[in-house]
């Protein structure tokens, strides 16, 4: 007697596969279409049952035929379990079917939830790595040995100079030496600075990690006094002392390099060097700029230079900016805000002002 319940299934005779319908009878006899389309049957009692596939949700009924060829019937319709359980089967067979049915349900359920679960994992991973990343950058910047920083800076500095004209004028050089020397004396660190003036009309100055400073001839031309250039240098030098350049490099570098640094992997150095060529175009964030202003003011106060020179230079650039409509290079990477100007203008004057003994007009002539 047949339960008249048909299921779509596959019949495997060795490697040969036939698709057809599977019918279950009350006494656990299963009918199926054979290779020639004739109906054949197999008793459940003679077969082995298991779940296969990915996920393991397909019921496999397998046996060896008379020719000792492995045969199996596959059905992935979960309803087949209920039909099989309704048959008159031995208690052991019933309990095995129950176990398989429960396993099948579990597998199907976990498969259903797997994609959303993975999506959640991925999101959690990205969010947590973003937070770890933003907190680990300052830590990693501190972990970088000073020799690494010097190497990276010198590479970027050399790289930057290719294709650019470095101004080599005695007047300019001695003036810049004088400024750097004064600042170096009062910056509270052992770092020695190297400065070049490049021939470029844009108003710009920046420092690479390790104390390598670039000033454009445009900046010198736009400054009315040596003190204004000194103010810019004090600001840039603070970026070096606070290792802001290293931080922006690390932010650009990615988690892999960060991990490398934490574990002292030397290959991280070469990767950082490669990245350092982008240093002059990466911008600092607002808090780094404010730190650099504050640090610059401190150096200026110690070195006997009035912070008002920094404020006046900022204002001048701002006006220049409103006339031409262009943002000067220096503020593309160092965003200037009203707040910054106000903070600088409100800074205390040094106890004693020591003027630079220079003929600034002559220096300006030197860069023309």
């Amino acid at each position, binding site marked *: 007697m047949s339960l008249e319940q048909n299921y*779509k*299934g*596959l019949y*495997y005779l*060795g*490697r*040969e*596969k036939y*698709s057809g319908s599977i019918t279950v009878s009350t006494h656990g006899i299963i009918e199926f279409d054979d290779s020639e389309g004739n109906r054949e049957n197999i008793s459940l009692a003679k077969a082995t049952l298991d779940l*296969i*596939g*990915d996920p*393991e949700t*397909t019921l*496999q009924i*397998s046996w060896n035929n008379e020719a000792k060829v*492995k*045969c*199996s019937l*596959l*059905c*992935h319709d979960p309803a087949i379990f209920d039909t099989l359980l309704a048959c008159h089967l031995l208690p052991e067979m019933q309990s095995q079917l129950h176990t398989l049915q429960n396993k099948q349900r579990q597998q199907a359920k976990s*498969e259903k939830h*797997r*994609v959303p*679960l*993975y*999506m959640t994992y991925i999101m959690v991973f990205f969010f947590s790595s973003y937070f770890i990343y933003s907190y680990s950058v300052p830590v990693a910047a501190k972990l970088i040995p000073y020799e690494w920083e010097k190497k990276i800076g010198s590479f970027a500095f050399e790289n930057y100079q290719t294709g650019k004209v470095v101004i080599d004028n005695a007047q300019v050089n001695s003036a810049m030496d004088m400024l750097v020397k004064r600042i170096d004396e009062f910056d509270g660190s052992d770092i020695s600075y190297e400065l070049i003036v490049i021939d470029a009309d844009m108003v710009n100055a920046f420092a690479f990690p390790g104390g390598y400073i670039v000033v454009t001839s445009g900046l010198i031309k736009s400054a009315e006094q040596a003190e204004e250039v000194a103010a810019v240098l004090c600001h840039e030098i603070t970026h070096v002392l606070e290792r802001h350049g290293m931080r922006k490099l690390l932010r650009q570098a990615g988690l892999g390099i960060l991990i490398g640094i934490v574990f002292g992997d030397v290959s991280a150095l070469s990767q950082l060097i490669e990245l350092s060529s982008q240093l002059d175009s990466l911008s600092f964030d607002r808090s780094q700029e404010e730190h650099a202003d504050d640090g610059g003011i401190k150096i200026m106060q110690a070195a006997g230079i009035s912070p008002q020179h920094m404020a006046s230079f900022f204002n001048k650039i701002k006006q220049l900016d409103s006339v031409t409509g262009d943002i000067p290079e220096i503020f593309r990477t160092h965003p200037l805000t009203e707040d910054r100007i106000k903070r600088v203008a409100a800074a205390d004057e040094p106890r004693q002002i020591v003027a630079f003994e220079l003929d600034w007009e002559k220096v300006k002539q030197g860069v023309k």
Partner: protein
Amino acid sequence: MKFNIIYPGAFSTLEVSLDEGEAIKAESGAMITMSETVDVDSKMERGLLGGLTRKLLTGETLFFQTLTASRGQGDVLMASAYPGEIAILELDGSEEYILQKDGFLAAEESIEISTKAQNLTKGLFSGEGFFVMRVSGKGKIAISTYGGIHKISIAPGETTIIDNSHMVAWSANANYKIEKASKGWVSSFTSGEGLVCRFQGPGDVYIQTRNSPGFGSWIRQFIPTR
């Protein structure tokens, strides 16, 4: 609807003849030519979430294109972006297939495509990534590969070993495990095979005779660095 492969071999192209009212879905950008009776439309299979999931997870396109012969019989030519063979699978509803992410080219409308997440070991080491496509339903589906396509039929209880990154499509009934290529870890890696996939039958596995990551690393040595 007729699926026909023209120019078999490296530059296999799929030709689909559609009767009026018939439609197929295809990988976006796969269409080369089509009759004027055919309308092309884009559709997010399984809605926005399904489309986004597929885009984010399997790297497949957000939209599938639907080509409908709305004004009479029409033909469409399609191919994937890379050289390789195309194979046609006929699904009758009794079996589901799993496709690697670049494997799908086109399918009849009745075929359902969803994202399947593989487990951790498979995701990391199978070379197919964490997310693959699961195709089910009744109808024809065209799969494309990089290299030639070879079908391996595995008998019940039989196992076969396939190098990772070579699988294109496999029946969902045929589960596989990741294992090392030889007994020892050292010899597994020094043999150049590393990890392999051991498939357990019954089921069919379509493999590609070349793998794109392998080709990528081979060709890299000829690309001037600067």
